[in-house]
């Protein structure tokens, strides 16, 4: 048997050059797949004979077979080194011949780093893997959610951003889609980029679905909380969201809906009592931290409202109007909000007065012009994309056949008095 592995390795070495060779090699490897799997434990020594950058396809099959069995703790580290190295150096063209194998190897990497409790080690390999696997940055791969969960576990939210910056448009697996946007929302929450988080969660909540799934429900819970933090009120679900979501989501997130209602009342006592009654549920959902942020956002919102109505206001008055205990607390809140650029104001500590000023942005600076220009460019590309899509869909055979069918049916009804079922 060992011979045959050696023979195979020799084939790999010989047939990794031209595309024709690779196709041949690919069929060979497919035939040997089962036997490779049965010899998983004996494969490790052969990796030395192969160059991951040149013999990527063969290397991939061996690696996939080697990792298919259970990996014991001692071998795990070695596997990780080999696999990471492979992902780093492999040739993108070759691995795209067998994307399933590649994905399965990468998933093993993810499982192993989680088992070893070192999620940070998986981040770079997975990011590289995604880039090699993707045909365009608009395509969602099955590795996207895995990458994001590693970022979440390692608390490396910034690393996650490198992927979240891409606009995902093409999707293969609905499950990947939900997970990707749910995790994406969480990463953005972690970085306090609430607007982006809302976009992600919004996608997960309003996605077309025949039945509710747990991912959408969890996303909806966070969606409510983030909306409260960011905006102060939760809009009702848009019309285009699936009927399953519109009908049932609220029932599964009742404590959160209650929270939004008590938030809308603007009374801290009501909000606090609502949190107290549902504390356990929030804790179980691991959303208690966000709930706390919701509470403090109510203070912020009240202070922001004051800036709309007042030019100057004493700290005591702010404390009283915002239902804070002391002027000192009010000062801290105002200070923090000024720092975060959420309000424009100055505090005069001598007489405890806060003067609110208008947004100093005059829309006259070069940066602003550039920003506007960029926005225009962005929208123009977008509109080009839509046009391309429109064309693509109007050429789509299944779309055309559906339209055609409907049209003929219509014509029948119009011109033929005999109903269709009799024809």
């Amino acid at each position, binding site marked *: 048997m060992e011979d045959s592995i050696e023979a195979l390795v020799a084939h790999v070495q010989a047939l990794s050059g031209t595309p024709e060779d690779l196709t041949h090699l690919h069929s060979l490897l497919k035939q040997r797949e089962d036997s490779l799997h049965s010899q998983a434990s004996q494969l490790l020594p052969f990796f030395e004979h192969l160059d991951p950058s040149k013999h990527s396809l063969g290397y991939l099959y061996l690696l996939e077979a080697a990792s298919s069995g259970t990996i014991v703790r001692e071998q795990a580290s070695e596997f990780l080194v080999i696999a990471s190295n492979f992902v780093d150096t492999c040739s993108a063209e070759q691995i795209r011949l067998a994307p399933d194998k590649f994905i399965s190897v990468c998933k093993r990497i993810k499982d192993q780093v989680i088992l070893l409790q070192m999620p940070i080690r998986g981040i770079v390999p997975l990011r590289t893997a995604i880039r090699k696997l993707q045909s365009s940055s608009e395509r969602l791969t099955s590795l996207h959610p895995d990458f994001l969960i590693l970022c979440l576990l390692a608390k490396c939210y910034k690393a996650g951003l490198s992927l979240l910056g891409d606009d995902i448009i093409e999707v293969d697996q609905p499950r990947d889609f939900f997970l990707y946007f749910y995790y994406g929302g969480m990463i953005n929450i972690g970085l306090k980029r609430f607007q982006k988080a809302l976009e992600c969660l919004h996608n997960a909540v309003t996605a077309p679905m025949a039945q509710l799934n747990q991912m959408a429900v969890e996303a909806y819970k966070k969606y409510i909380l983030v909306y409260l933090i960011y905006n102060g009120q939760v809009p009702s679900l848009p019309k285009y969201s699936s009927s399953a979501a519109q009908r049932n989501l609220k029932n599964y997130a009742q404590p959160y809906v209650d929270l939004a209602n008590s938030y809308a009342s603007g009374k801290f006592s009501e909000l606090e009592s609502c949190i107290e009654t549902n504390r356990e549920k929030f804790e179980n959902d691991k959303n208690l931290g966000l709930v706390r942020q919701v509470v403090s956002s109510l203070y912020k919102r009240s202070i922001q409202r004051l800036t709309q109505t007042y*030019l100057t206001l004493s700290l005591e008055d702010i404390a009283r109007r915002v239902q804070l205990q002391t002027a000192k607390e009010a000062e801290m809140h105002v200070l923090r909000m000024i720092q975060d650029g959420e309000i424009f104001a100055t505090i005069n500590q001598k007489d405890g007065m806060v003067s609110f000023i208008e947004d100093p942005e005059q829309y006259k600076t070069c940066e602003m012009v550039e920003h506007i220009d960029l926005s225009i460019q962005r929208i123009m590309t977008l509109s080009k994309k839509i046009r391309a899509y429109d064309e693509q869909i109007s050429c789509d055979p299944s779309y055309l056949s559906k339209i055609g069918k409907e049209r003929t049916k219509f014509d029948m009804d119009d011109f033929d008095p005999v109903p269709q079922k009799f024809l």
Partner: protein
Amino acid sequence: MEGEEDTMGTARGSAMWSNGGGPGDDEEVVEAEQQKQQRPIASGDHMDVEAYAGLYSGRTRIVRLMFIADRCGNPSTQMEALRMAYDEIKEGEDTQLHREVVKKIDGRLGPGYELDHVWADAVDRRAEQRKEKLESELNSYKTNLIKESIRMGYNDFGDFHYAHGMLGDAFKSYVRTRDYCTNSKHIIQTCLNVILVSIEMGQFMHVTNYVSKAEQASEVLEPVTVAKLKCAAGLAHLEAKKYKLAARKFLETGIELGNQYSEVIAAQDVATYGGLCALASFDRTELKNKVIDNINFRNFLELVPEVRELIHDFYASRYATCLEYLENLKETLLLDIHLHDHVETLYTLIRHKAIIQYTHPFISVDLHTMADAFKTSVSGLEKELEALITDNQIQARIDSHNKILYARHADQRNATFQRVLQTGVDFDKDVKAMLLRANLFKHEHNAKATRKFGFI
């Protein structure tokens, strides 16, 4: 008892007389006003129930008296109202109402005001006989198929039911007369009857319906009828909280109305309702054109000088006196059967209007002066202003340190930039989400097709 009733009757008669005419009425209201100003807190105490009841006739007088008795906190007024209601009911034929009022009096008015079984039984007996008679009459009309007689028959039935307080039946009978109307006069009569009953039942949908039916019925209506219909429509709009429409209807009411619609509304009410609704819903030019310069409506306003004064005060920006008038009127208005529910809303609307108008011409306003003008404290005023600014009804900001209100002129340019950028971001977001959803649909479609046909 007989004698007492008589004296009551004359007393009421005189009250009616003194209220019916213009000048006498003025005097009385002015007098009442003076009383109010002496003790402005409890103006309800001094409500002249007799004078008030004198403005109305028919069932509405009884209903209004009972309403006052229910609402008024002052026992003497309450008793007065109940006594008058009792006497009034005795003249009518509604035994149910009689029992009700006796229960409310609860023996507090002495032996003269107890449940009168003899009277009630007699009335009921008579009613029974009359009903049989009407029924047999109606049946014979029906067999003879004389339209006019059938109509009269139903009409009599309606009157009969109405007098006995069976409003639902009265309504049905009156509505039925409609099928047998032969000329527009009849239609008008039907409509007015239905409107009368509907108002008492509180069914203002029917009121609106039948007002429009009556207005379509014929080309030339008598001015009095027109005025009646306007009043009814105004009441319906008021009840539906459409104050602006209500104000218009009341303002259009012709002075021909006089006291000819006293079974529903008094001319004084037209002035009060119209005036308050107009104040609450009209802007300044409308107020000037449609109320102050309205010669027709001026005649109504003369009947209630307080309302006239407060409208003029409002227009002349003498808000303190205007609000004072309003405050003095409040107790009485709360006892009004139609207005009581709307007093608070109308008052808040008027107050807000006043505050907005006050701030409008200034770049900066000293809050102390303003608080004086509105007879309130600076902090109270600040709260009201805050609410209005948050509502975007006043474009201004408060300098709480120096107690000055500064007008704020929105920077159109900046606002536009801001909106444009925001729109861009929203569009971007929405389109991307849409493309994504489209793709998911496509995927789902493909997946289904794959499953169905079994190929990859």
